[in-house]
């Protein structure tokens, strides 16, 4: 493999990892702060993609579709927290799994009723529609590069909010000791609600951003859900920084696995996960 091809594959791996991080960060936040396992995370990813396709085809504008789909996902997150999820906080994981599995079925059926089961594609905004020539035959879509930038900015924003702001302090305090936070008079239930809605919005955001480079199809959330869990477990449950490292590791392993070890590429990321868990049973940055 020459150096140019290697660099391009590196870019592929990083880009894939960044998208994985975007989706998985919502999952790890919700688990780390609310203590709720959300199996429907992949379904919200799919819903985001379908919403952006639908809104883009109605309004003709990717920007409007982006804002609209994100807003709908956020509001849906708030409503679901109010009606269902807040009752699940502190319950055992089986109840949470049952509820979120039910949500998968409902969302899948809703998608079927509202949008049908056809495969769709979404056009990227025109100013990101071009591509950059990398080698004599290969070019790289500008949208994919923009996707990397957006993911990096979002990752930075998440870290900033969690580590440097008062809101982030409350969130971290709540994750550390829920009862003590409440006793100090901090409205932690409200925080729960917005963290859950934010997690759902992050999943949907992943779907919205990926829609133009991927396609929009019914089963798209299933694979992403499993990968997100691998990322979260690898990085350490509840750790956003761990999710970032885990996602990049998975992205690079998958990309180079497909190139160098095609026969076993499908199991490589799971081998990686098993190896890391043997070495650090709580994940890379997980707390014991």
């Amino acid at each position: 493999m020459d150096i140019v091809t290697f660099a391009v594959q590196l870019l592929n791996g990083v880009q894939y990892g960044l998208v994985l991080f975007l989706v998985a960060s919502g999952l790890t936040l919700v688990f780390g702060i609310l203590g709720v396992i959300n199996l429907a995370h992949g379904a919200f990813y799919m819903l985001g993609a379908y919403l952006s396709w639908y809104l883009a085809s109605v309004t003709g504008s990717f920007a409007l579709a982006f804002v609209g789909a994100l807003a709908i996902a956020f509001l849906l997150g708030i409503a679901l927290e109010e009606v269902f999820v807040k009752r699940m906080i502190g319950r055992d994981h089986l109840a949470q799994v049952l509820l979120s599995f039910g949500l998968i079925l409902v969302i899948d059926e809703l998608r079927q009723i509202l949008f049908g089961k056809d495969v769709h594609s979404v056009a990227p905004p025109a100013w990101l529609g071009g591509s950059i020539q990398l080698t004599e035959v290969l070019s790289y879509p500008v949208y994919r590069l923009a996707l990397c930038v957006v993911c990096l900015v979002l990752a930075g924003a998440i870290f900033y909010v969690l580590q440097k702001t008062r809101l982030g302090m409350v969130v971290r305090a709540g994750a550390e000791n829920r009862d003590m936070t409440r006793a100090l008079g901090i409205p932690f239930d409200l925080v729960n609600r917005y963290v859950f809605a934010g997690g759902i919005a992050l999943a949907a955001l992943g779907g919205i951003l990926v829609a133009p480079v991927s396609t929009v199809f019914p089963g798209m959330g299933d694979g992403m859900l499993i990968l997100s869990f691998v990322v979260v477990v690898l990085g350490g449950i509840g750790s956003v920084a761990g999710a970032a490292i885990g996602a990049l590791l998975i992205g690079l392993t998958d990309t180079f696995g497909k190139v160098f070890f095609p026969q076993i590429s499908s199991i490589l990321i799971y081998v990686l996960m098993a190896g890391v868990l043997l070495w650090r049973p709580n994940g890379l940055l997980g707390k014991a």
Partner: protein
Amino acid sequence: MSDSVFSGGRLDRRRLLLGSAGLVAAGAGFRFPTPAIAQSAPLKVGFMLPYSGTFAKLGKFIDDGFRLYAENNAGLFRGRKLEFVQVDDESKPETATDNMNRLVSREKVDLVVGTVHSGVAMAMVKVARDTKTMLIIPNAGVNEATGPMCAPNIFRSSFSNWQVCHPMGQVMFDEGRRRVVTITWRYAAGTQMVEAFKEGFTKAGGQVLEDLALPFPEVEFQALITRIAALKPDAVFAFFAGGGAVKFVKDYAAAGLNRTIPLYGSGFLTDGTLQAQGADANGIKTTLHYADNLDTGPNREFLQAFKQKTGEEGDIYAVQGWDAAALLAAGLGATRGDWSARDKVIAAMRAAELASPRGTVRFNKAGNPIQDIYLREVRNGRNEFVSVAGRSVDDPARGCRAV
């Protein structure tokens, strides 16, 4: 996860749609008194098809095509009425054996028509062999069904994976492609299609540089597309279907490879997916046993009749359902409607020559169609006919000893 690229309805509840569809009056035979046996009871046809999930449209079109033929050609069924029983197989291999057994044992159908998904079809083939139930497969292309698993009572009105890909080898060689890369999902259908293409291509004198594959149903193609760009082959042969086909074609074009390395494939790469693929699919050449604009008498009549009945544009799946009914008519015709004269029915069906919308169809010893395979090119959002890639292509029926 085994079917999740296709699986809108992976989690759909199970549905059993019994006989509500009712009877089709095949009311011919006014001129001659038909034999008493022919009027005794309607012939019970069991449709085991995907009526929900991502293949739902395919299942419906097969069903519609079958019924349309039965209604329009009632006379050919020799006074035998047809009664239909529908079972939704949901494209789930794990429930396929139970569903098939229910049709055979409880519903006591005379003939089963199904299905789309190859894994489900293989389970059906096993039951059909054990119970000697007549079976017509109206889509699933898995080679084994008319290979090692063949039996006198098993027919196929569609294609084998080998059959639609083998002719592409010669086509690509004749177009000057000498060094080629293949890419597909690593599962039965993908492997069979790529192997058949390679067989034809290396026999013609071409060289396959590398076989790229990724786990089914993954759609992260970027690493392999970069690999293709590094290998710089003359062309690429691909098999994907459904959502994966759309994404692969779009990613391939987004990487700019469609300008320098032409993309070829089996017909499923661009069938039923063109609307989502858009202009990125233009120029892709594929082989299949049908093309959107075949200008033959039977095809024009079929498309018109189908449009009239269902309001939709007929496609290859509807044709395969239509031909399954034509095959049944050929069997009944030979015995004047007497289904119990089984050997005669089977012999007549094996010897049938159908004037199908896709062209003339005959059957080999394993019950697989012998048919023309067409080279098509994507133009104007359609798979347009280019030429005949192979005349009267016959699947080698490898491993078939039972007949």
